[in-house]
C-alpha cells in the first residue's frame, strides 16, 4: 500500500437530503491507490447513499468528488465506470443466459470485420485475466446456471477487465463459503499489489480485519471515524458503529420500564429452529408482555429466522410452539391465523401499497372484519382508519391520503398500524425504524410499549444498539445464523453486547 500517494478517489462534503430526512451529511471519503478501505455502518447509516453517489446512481445535494485529482460530474453511472470506478453490487449485474466469457466483456467484446466477435482474442484475454488472479471458471457456462459464488467471481472479473482504478464491493462475501472467501481475499491482495483501490463494504468484522488496511465508520448519515485497522480492535469498531454510551437519562428511563419475561406466560417457544444453509439451532422463549430484541450484524440471518416463524419462509429443522400448540406456518395466511403479525423490513417492497390510501393500507390485513355480506363497510373501514391514525399520530391525519405522500416515519406507523389492527398475540417487527426520523422513532417505541402493556409478545429485529438498549426487555444476539445468547436488558452492559455482536467470546 502506497503511503502518501494522492488519493485516486476523493469525495468531500457529500450530503443528501430527501425531504426532511437527512440520509447523508457532510461526508468525506478518500482511497489511495493500492489501499483496501473498509466501509461499515448499520442500516440507515448512510453507507448505501454514499455508495450510490460514488457510482453515479444518484446526485448528491452537496459536495464534490475527484477521481485522479480531477473533479467529475456526478449522477452519471456510465461516466463513473469510464473513469475507472466499478461497483460489484449485491444484486446480479449479469445477463444470466449469456456465457461467462460474454458477461466479462459485456458490451465490449473485441470485434473484427462486420462486427464479428473475435472469440479467440476474447478467450485469450479472459484466460490471461483468470491466470493473473488465480480464478478458475468455465468460460462457456451460462452465468445463470452457476452457483452464486461463481457469479460473484464473474462480476469481479468483469470489473477487472475494465481496468478499474477503484472497485467498490458491496457485501461481496454474502453468499460465499469460507474457502471462497479466502480466494476472494487473495484476489484483493493481488489487486492491491497492482495499485487498484478497493472499497470493501461489509459487516463481517473477521474479514475486514483480515484483508483491509483502513476503515471508515458511518453512523446516522455521518462519517464518525476513520482509522488504520492495525490501530484499533473489534470492540472499538463496533462501539463506533452502534453509538457512544447512551445518555444517562435515557438509560435510567429505559431501566424503569423494563419487563423481562413480561407476565411470565410463554407465548412463543422456539426450539432448535433451523433452515439448511441459513441458520440453525435457534432456541428461545418469548413471553407475553415483553419486548425481545434480536440484534446482531447484518448477515446474521435474523430476518430469515423471523420470516420462518411467521410463515413467509419455510424452516426445515426444529419446532415452533405458540401458546403451547405446535405450529408450522407455511404461508402468511397460516401465520396470521396463529396470531402473528409481521412488520417486514422493507416497507416499500413488502409492506405498503404506495398508491393506495392510508385507510386502505391500514385495513389491508383485517378486511374480514369489515365485511357486511358480500360488501365492505366503507364507513367501518374509515372509522377504523381514523381510530388508528389517531392512536398512532399519523400525520397528515387524513385517511384518504395516498401513502406514498407520507414521510418515512409516518409510512412506518401506517404499516405497524395495519398489523396492530389484527390485535396480534405475537408481533414481529423487522428493523422497524430504518429511515425514520427521530420524532417518529420515539412515537413508535411508545406504541410498542403500549402494546406490551396490553399483553402482546413482541419480537423485534434491530441492528441499532441504541434502540435496542432503549426498548428491549431482553436482548438476543445472533451471529452468523446462530443465537449466541439471550440476556435480560437490565443486567448486561452495552460493551458486552458489542463484544458478542463482533463475534467475540461472551
Amino acid at each position: 500500500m502506497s503511503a502518501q500517494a494522492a488519493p485516486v478517489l476523493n469525495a468531500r462534503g457529500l450530503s443528501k437530503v430527501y425531504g426532511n430526512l437527512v440520509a447523508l451529511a457532510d461526508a468525506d471519503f478518500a482511497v489511495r491507490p493500492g489501499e483496501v478501505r473498509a466501509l461499515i455502518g448499520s442500516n440507515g447509516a448512510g453507507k448505501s447513499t454514499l455508495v450510490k453517489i460514488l457510482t453515479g446512481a444518484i446526485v448528491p445535494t452537496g459536495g464534490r468528488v475527484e477521481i485522479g485529482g480531477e473533479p467529475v460530474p456526478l449522477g452519471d453511472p456510465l461516466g463513473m465506470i469510464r473513469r475507472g470506478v466499478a461497483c460489484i453490487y449485491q444484486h446480479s449485474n449479469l445477463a444470466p443466459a449469456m456465457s461467462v466469457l460474454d458477461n466479462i466483456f459485456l458490451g465490449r467484446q473485441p470485434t473484427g470485420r462486420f462486427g464479428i466477435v473475435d472469440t479467440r482474442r476474447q478467450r485469450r484475454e479472459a484466460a490471461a485475466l483468470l491466470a493473473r488472479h488465480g480464478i478458475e471458471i468455465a468460460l462457456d457456462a451460462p452465468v445463470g446456471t452457476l452457483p452464486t459464488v461463481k457469479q460473484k467471481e464473474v462480476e469481479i472479473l468483469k470489473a477487472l477487465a475494465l481496468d478499474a482504478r477503484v472497485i467498490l464491493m458491496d457485501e461481496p462475501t454474502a453468499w460465499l463459503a469460507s474457502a471462497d472467501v479466502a480466494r476472494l481475499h487473495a484476489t484483493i491482495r493481488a489487486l492491491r499489489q497492482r495499485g487498484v483501490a478497493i472499497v470493501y463494504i461489509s459487516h463481517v468484522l473477521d474479514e475486514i480485519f483480515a484483508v483491509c488496511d483502513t476503515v471508515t465508520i458511518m453512523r446516522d448519515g455521518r462519517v464518525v471515524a476513520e482509522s488504520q485497522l492495525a490501530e484499533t480492535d473489534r470492540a472499538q469498531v463496533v462501539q463506533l458503529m452502534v453509538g457512544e454510551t447512551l445518555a444517562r437519562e435515557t438509560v435510567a428511563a429505559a431501566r424503569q420500564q423494563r419487563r423481562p419475561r413480561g407476565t411470565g406466560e410463554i407465548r412463543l417457544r422456539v426450539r432448535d429452529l433451523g433452515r439448511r444453509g441459513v441458520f440453525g439451532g435457534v432456541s428461545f422463549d418469548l413471553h407475553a408482555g415483553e419486548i425481545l430484541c434480536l440484534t446482531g450484524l447484518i448477515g446474521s440471518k435474523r430476518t430469515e429466522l423471523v420470516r420462518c416463524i411467521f410463515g413467509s419462509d419455510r424452516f426445515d429443522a426444529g419446532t415452533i410452539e405458540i401458546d403451547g400448540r405446535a405450529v408450522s406456518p407455511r404461508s402468511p395466511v397460516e401465520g396470521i391465523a396463529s396470531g402473528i403479525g409481521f412488520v417486514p423490513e422493507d416497507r416499500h417492497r413488502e409492506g405498503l401499497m404506495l398508491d393506495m390510501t392510508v385507510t386502505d393500507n391500514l385495513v389491508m390485513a383485517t378486511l374480514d372484519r369489515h365485511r357486511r355480506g358480500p360488501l365492505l363497510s366503507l364507513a367501518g373501514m374509515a372509522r377504523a382508519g381514523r381510530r388508528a391514525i389517531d392512536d398512532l399520530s399519523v400525520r397528515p391525519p387524513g385517511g384518504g391520503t395516498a401513502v406514498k405522500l407520507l414521510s418515512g416515519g409516518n409510512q412506518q406507523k401506517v404499516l405497524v398500524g395495519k398489523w396492530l389492527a389484527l390485535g396480534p398475540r405475537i408481533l414481529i417487527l423487522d428493523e422497524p425504524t430504518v429511515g425514520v426520523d427521530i420524532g417518529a422513532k420515539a412515537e413508535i417505541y411508545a406504541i410498542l410499549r403500549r402494546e406490551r402493556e396490553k399483553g402482546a409478545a413482541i419480537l423485534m429485529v434491530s441492528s441499532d444498539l441504541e434502540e435496542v438498549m432503549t426498548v428491549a426487555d431482553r436482548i438476543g444476539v445472533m451471529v452468523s445464523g446462530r443465537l449466541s445468547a439471550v440476556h435480560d436488558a437490565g443486567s448486561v452492559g452495552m460493551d458486552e453486547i458489542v463484544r458478542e455482536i463482533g463475534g467475540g467470546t461472551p
Partner: protein
Amino acid sequence: MTIRFASAALVLFFAATIAFFSVSAPRFATASTVENLMSSFSFVAILAMGQAFPLLVRGIDLSIGAIVGLVGMVVFDLSLIFQVPGWIILPAALLVGTAAGALNGALVVCLRLQPFIATLATLAAYRGLTYAVSGRQLVPGLTTTPIRDPWIVGIETYLDVGRWTGLSTFVNMPWLPLSFVIMLGVFVVLQAALSSTRFGRDVYATGGNHEAARLAGIPIGTVTVCAYSISGFCAAIAALIMVARFTTATEALGTGMELSSIAAAVIGGVSLAGGVGAMFGPAVGAFLLGTILIGLTLQGVPQFVQQIITGAILLAAVGYDRLLWLRRERRPAAGAGPA
C-alpha cells in the same frame, strides 16, 4: 457461445411427430407432403424468426401481420399501378417493412411506450395504411389482374434438386421451393448475427438484464430499434413470398399471423421475458406446427380440431419451459452461506 440453440426436447418432439404421422396418416411420408410443408410454412418460419428479435429484447411485435399486409399492398401497387420493374420493387418492399419495424422500435424507445401497446397501435395504423394505399380500391379493375413481373413471380419457383443431385433416380424427391431456400438464407444470416457479432451479444444482454446492459455502455435504444426493424424486415420477406404465391395482394393479407409467429417462437424456446432463444427454435417451431396441421389434415381431422391442438401444444411448450425453470430454481446453489 452457449445460448440455448433449441432444446433437445423440441427436436425430439418434432422427430416424434414426424414419425407418428408417417405411420398413422396416409400419404404423409411422401415427397408432395414435404414439398407442401416447405412451401406453405417457410414464410411462417421467417415470421417466427423475425418475431424472435423483439421477444429477445423483452418486447413483442403485435403488428408483424399488419406489416405483411402493408408490404404486400405496396408491392401490388408498385407492380400493377406504377409498373415499376421488379428489381426495384424487391428492395423497396424490404425498405418499407424495415421502416415500419423501425417505427415500432422508435415508439418503444423514444416515447417509452410498452411494446404491447405500441405494436397494438401500429397494428391498427399499418392496417389502416394498407387500406389507404390499396390499389384494389383505387383501381378496381386491378382486383383480378395477376402480378406477372418475373422478379416477383419468380419467387414462387420450385427447384428440381432431385435431378441436379441425381437422387431422383433412387427416390421420389420433393422439389425444393425457393421460399424454403430464402428461409434458409434468412436463418443463416440472422443466426450468424445473433451468435457471432457484437450486435447479437448486445441483443441478448439488453433482453437478459436491461440495467446491466445499460451500465455496460450498450446502446440499448439502438439495439431495440434494430430488433424491431429486423422483425419488419422479415415481415417484408414473408409478404413477398405470399404475394408471389397468390400473384396478388389483399387488404387482409397477414391477418392473424402475429399469433402464429408468437406461438412458433415460444414453442421454439424464445422466452417472453427476453434474453433467451435463437433462430433454430422458431424455425423448427413453425415447421412443427405445419407438420401437425398437415398430418392432421391428411388424417382427416377437421380443421377445427387442429386449432385446438395448436393451442394445446403452445400451452405444453410454455408449461414445459416453466417446469425447467422451476427445477433450476429449486436446486440449491452450491456453497451457500454460513451456518
